[in-house]
Each structure stands twice: as C-alpha cells, then as structure tokens.
C-alpha cells in the first residue's frame, strides 16, 4: 500500500492569485481506488447477505470510512467515527417503527392515514437527529463537525418551503432550495467554529433555468431516437420494447441527469458563498455537464455490468467531486477546538436512510 506522507498539495485558485499575501488554496485529495473499494464492497455484500442484513450496519461504517479516510485536506484525512453497533441499534428501532406503520394498513387504512398526520410533525425532529448524528461522526484533525438546527427552522426549511415550491407549481423551487441550503450550512459547526453562508437568489434562479434548458435538450436528444427505435421494433414485430416503454425511460434518464446537473450548479453556489469563522473559504468548481455525464455513465456502467461496476462508479463520482473542491484558508488550520456535545442515537440517521431522505451537502 502506497502510504508515503506527501506534503499537502498546494495549488493556486486561478492564475492571477499567486501574488504575495494571497493564501494558497488547499486541494482536496482522494487516494482511494476502484480495485481497493471493490474488495470492500464485495465483502460487505457477502457478509450482509450471509447475516441476513445485520452486517449492513458495519458495511455502512466501512464504506463511509473508506471514502472519508482516503480523502485528505492539508495532509490530514477525514474519518467517520460511528461503529456498527450504534447504527444497528438505530436501524432496528427504525425498522420497528416502519413495520408498525405498515401493519396499520392491515388493521384499518383509516388509522394509517391518521398515523401519517402524526408522523409529519415528527419529520423535522428526525431530520435534526440525522444531520446532527452525521455531523458528530465526521472528524478532521481531531475536530468533529456539529449541526445545531432547531425544530422550527427545520420545519420551515424542509416542510414549509417545499410546500411553497409545490403550491407555486415549481416557480418558488429555487427560492426553496436556496432557503434550505442556507439553513443547512449556517447551522453546521466545525468544533466550536461557526459557518456563515451567502447565496444570491438570482444565481439560484439562473441555475434553475439552465437546468430546465438542460432537461429539454436531454429529453429531445434521448426521446427522439428512443421513440424511433421503439416504433421500428414495433413494426418489426418485437413486442415489449415499443415507444410507450422506451419513451418513459428516456424521460427518466433526462430527469435524473438534469437533477445531478442542478445539484452541481447549486453546490457550487452554496460552497463558494460559505465561510468558516476566521475567514476560511471554499472553492467549488464542479462542472454541471461533467458531473451529469459522470452520473449517467456510472448508471449505464452499473446496469450493463449487472452491478459489478458499482464500486468503480462510486469511486469515480466521489473522486470527481473531491477533485473540484478546495479550501481557501485565511490562516493556520490547527487552531480549531472541538466541543464535547453528544451525537445522540443513530435512529434519525437510520430512519432517514431507510426512508430514502437525501439531506446534506
């Protein structure tokens, strides 16, 4: 294993920023490899199957630790501190809650509807627990992240704003996305150090319009040919691959790649407007087209290889993100101090995981 301790890699942000006094940018560096992760992935898969899913808690720890631990900034690696027991406990409670909820339908669909209304006010609480747990388990240089959002704030950002976005037929979607990401990032702490976040509404709307244009272009480029192929197959008497089957697939791919295009654009806006107390900034240059291509090609590779290229795809996507993110330190990075507040249990985290919530940066 190549583990010589190279010095931190320092690259200038832009050709013009090399003058004296400007702090150099610190590039994020990912040292993982597809072959190494393939072993971890395969063993995780096998052990999860053999143990009927129980290993999946440890599998998650090893997966996240592999990606965090091989990502370095200023020569220091990130790490993930959770252990399998924590996640297993949270997961068991989450599974019990979900099973209880599902079994309500057997008793009476009406009871289940009532239960749903009781669940909605619980969501901000669960999201808070999840974000806090994730943050407290993430460490760099012996200092952990923290997340300090409160109930009402989360309710506004993750329930009211999305509701407004839906009610406005999507017109308020960029404003909702901006509100949620500002709320999210402003409530992170690195140890005791606070984050400040700024993002212009105009830029969010610009990203949104670009994404709509992107979607239309993709839908046209994929939908046209696939519709034609479907029509030809139908004429040839091949059943099951008609236009009504292929066209929704084209729309799905266009929608999903457009989502990763939007993700890349908004991530840049949010991270470039983020500062850590002390004036440390970030520089995110994730290309929208590039990242959506990574997503699409990863998907195709995973499908065509029947899942075997999944580890390669995961490493490739992570590396691409890491390669396009740098820190802009305003001074020494060893002055941070951790605070000792507790992480709380893993229930929120595991519940969100099982229910497929996707929150975080």
């Amino acid at each position, binding site marked *: *294993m190549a*583990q010589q*301790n190279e010095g931190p890699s320092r690259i200038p942000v832009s050709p013009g920023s090399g003058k004296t006094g400007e702090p150099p940018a610190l590039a994020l560096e990912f*040292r993982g490899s597809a072959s*190494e992760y*393939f*072993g*971890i*992935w*395969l*063993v*995780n*898969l*096998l*052990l999860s*199957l*053999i143990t009927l*899913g129980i290993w*999946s808690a440890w*599998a*998650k720890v*090893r*997966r996240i*630790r*592999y990606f965090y631990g*091989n990502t370095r900034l200023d020569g220091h*690696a990130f*790490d993930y501190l959770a252990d399998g027991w924590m996640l297993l406990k949270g997961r068991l409670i989450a599974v019990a809650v979900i099973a209880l909820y599902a079994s309500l*339908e*057997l008793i009476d*669909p009406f009871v289940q509807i009532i239960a749903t209304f009781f669940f909605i006010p619980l969501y901000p609480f669960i999201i808070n627990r999840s974000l806090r747990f994730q943050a407290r388990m993430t460490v760099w*240089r*012996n*200092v952990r992240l923290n997340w300090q959002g409160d109930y009402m704030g989360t309710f506004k950002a993750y329930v009211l704003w999305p509701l407004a976005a839906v009610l406005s037929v999507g017109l308020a979607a960029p404003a909702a996305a901006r509100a949620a990401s500002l709320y999210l990032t402003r409530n992170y702490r690195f*140890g005791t150090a606070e984050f400040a976040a700024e993002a212009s509404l105009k830029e969010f709307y610009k990203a949104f319009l670009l994404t709509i244009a992107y979607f239309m272009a993709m839908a046209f480029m994929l939908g046209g040919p696939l519709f034609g192929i479907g029509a030809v197959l139908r004429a040839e008497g091949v*059943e*099951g691959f008609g236009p009504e089957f292929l066209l929704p697939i084209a729309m*799905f*791919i266009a*929608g*999903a*790649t457009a989502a*990763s295009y939007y993700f890349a654009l908004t991530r840049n806006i949010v991270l470039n407007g983020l500062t850590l107390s002390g004036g440390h900034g970030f520089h995110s240059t994730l290309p929208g087209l590039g990242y959506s291509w990574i*997503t*699409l090609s*990863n*998907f195709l590779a*995973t*499908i065509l290889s029947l*899942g075997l290229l*999944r580890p390669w795809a*995961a490493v490739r*996507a992570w590396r691409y993100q890491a390669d396009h993110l740098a820190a802009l330190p305003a001074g020494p*990075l*060893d*002055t*941070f*101090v*951790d605070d*000792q507040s507790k992480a709380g249990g893993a229930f929120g985290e595991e519940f969100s995981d099982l229910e497929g919530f996707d929150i975080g940066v």
Partner: protein
Amino acid sequence: MNLRGQIFETASARSSGAELSLRAGHLVLTCQDDGEVAEVQLTKVSDRLAGTARRLHLTDGRLFVTEDDKGADAILAALGRPAGFRVFILERPSVRNLALCLGLFVTIAGGLYFGLPVAADLAALGLPDRLERQAGGAAFENLDSWALEPSQLLTASQDRVRGLFEQTVRASKLSFVPELHFRASELLGANAFAFPGGPVVVTDALVTLAPNNDALVGVLAHEIAHIEARHGLRRLMRAVGWTIIVSTLIGDSSTVLDELVAFPVVLITQGYSRAFEIEADQRALVLMRQLDFDPKAYEEMLARLYAPCGTACDEAGWWSSHPGFENRIEALTPAE
C-alpha cells in the same frame, strides 16, 4: 517496536510528531516537540481499513494517529488487545480473494434464487389467516372505492354463480367460504380476481361472456386456487425478500438515477406471478374434473378472455403479470 505518527491534544486540531513504543510491556509515548516521554494507555482503536489512518485514543483524552497499520497491529498484539475486525484481509484486492468472493457470490446467488422463494413462502404460511384476510379485505375496499361499481346482474344469475362458487369451494381444500362480490367495471372489463384470503370479485362482463356453467366454474376454480395456495401473500413476501436483498446490494447509491436498479425486483416478482397463474390454471382443471365439469370449457373461456387482445397476447413479456394465451394453453395440455 516503534510506531511513528502524530499526537493531537484533547479536542484540538493541533498536532505534532510523536512515537509510541513498547518498553518492558508498557506503552510509552514520546513527543517530538517538547520531548515529553510518558507512559500511556489505550482506549478505543479504529479498525484497519485500506488507505485510512489508524486512530488510537489514549485514556488521557489525547489522540494518536498513524499510517503504519502493521506497526499498530504489532503493538496491539503485544499488548494482548483483541485485534478487532479482521475483515480487511478478505477485502484486499488479490486474485485469491476475488476467486473466493466470486465463488461465494455464485453460491449465495444460487442459494437465493432457489432458497428465497422457499423461505418467503414459509414466512407467508406462518402468518395468521386472520391477518391475511384483513389485508385482502383492505385491498378490496381500496379497489372497490375507485375502480368498481355496483353490479347490474339479475339476482337469479347472481345466485346461479354463487351456487357454482360454493360448490367449487367445497371441492377445494379451503376450510372457509371466501366472500364473493359482483361488480361492474369499465376499467377492468371481463375479469375475476382473488384477494389474499378472499374476497373474490367477478365482473358482470365476465358472467355475460361465459357461454355456460362449465366456463364459469373454470374461472371461479382458478381464483379459488389462488386463495387455496395463498399466492397473493406469497408473492408479497417474495417481493419483500428481493427488495431487502437488492437494496443491500446498492446500499451506497447516492443519486436518483440509481433508483432504477431496483427494476430487477419487479422483473423477478412478475416471473413468480406468471408461475402462480399457471399453477392456478392447472389446479382449476383438477377441481373441474372432480366436480364433473368439462375442462375443455376452461380453455374456450380463456380464448374468449384473450380474444380482444389478439395475437399480441399470445406470448407473455418479461414484465407482464400474466402468462400469454399460448403459454397457458401449452401448460394446460399435458395435464389432460
């Protein structure tokens, strides 16, 4: 035995070079900056994982981080500490490990392919009848509320069908008589379906389409066979099983696009569904013979039901829930 690394003060991002060494069975920390030499004790040590640094927590709150996995393992072994998870040995990319894992993978995949239906069926059969009937009843009420309308059939013909239904149930292995409902539905056309544990729904169009009692008994026997063999619940449990496995498989998914990978679950369960239809067809013929109805009438009834669809429905696609017409006739022929 020396282990080089970095020492972090409690809750601080400041680190300095340091060394851990074993002296006469004691763990000694030597700090490069201030020349401190002190005996220390370990609390938590992170597991070994390719490319990641090892974190050795000290009882005094400080943290020692090292890239030297072998050195750390040697010191832990010398201290007599449990080695922790040794999974990394299996995870290392080597031809031997790859062969081992792929061999295991094929074994497990094969075991799942044959074993999962058996295990899911056992789970389904283990569920209390009452629960199954409640689930079936709830599903029926749901469908009834949006897709079905009251029947326009005359009471006389309803009674005739009900009589045939009860006669068939008595011939079957069912210990209870499932509810039978008559409904009209433009959406579903000539159709009959069974919910887990009953009820059975028969549409007006189906009763009108049937040329004689023999044909009706065939269709009713097919639905009763579904309830008898608990096909609905078994299909559900098998789908749950495959969903768990596939989501374990793609547990590290991060984008919307990856959701499509769950597609195989649908394909697999539709395969089960088609197999259950064939099973119910064959059981229907047995019941018909037992009751002295003409089995040929069932084939004719199937032909009538498939007629509007034409040749397109002769063969089933890999995503359809029912077998094609020719598949069904073929499966019925050897049984005669």
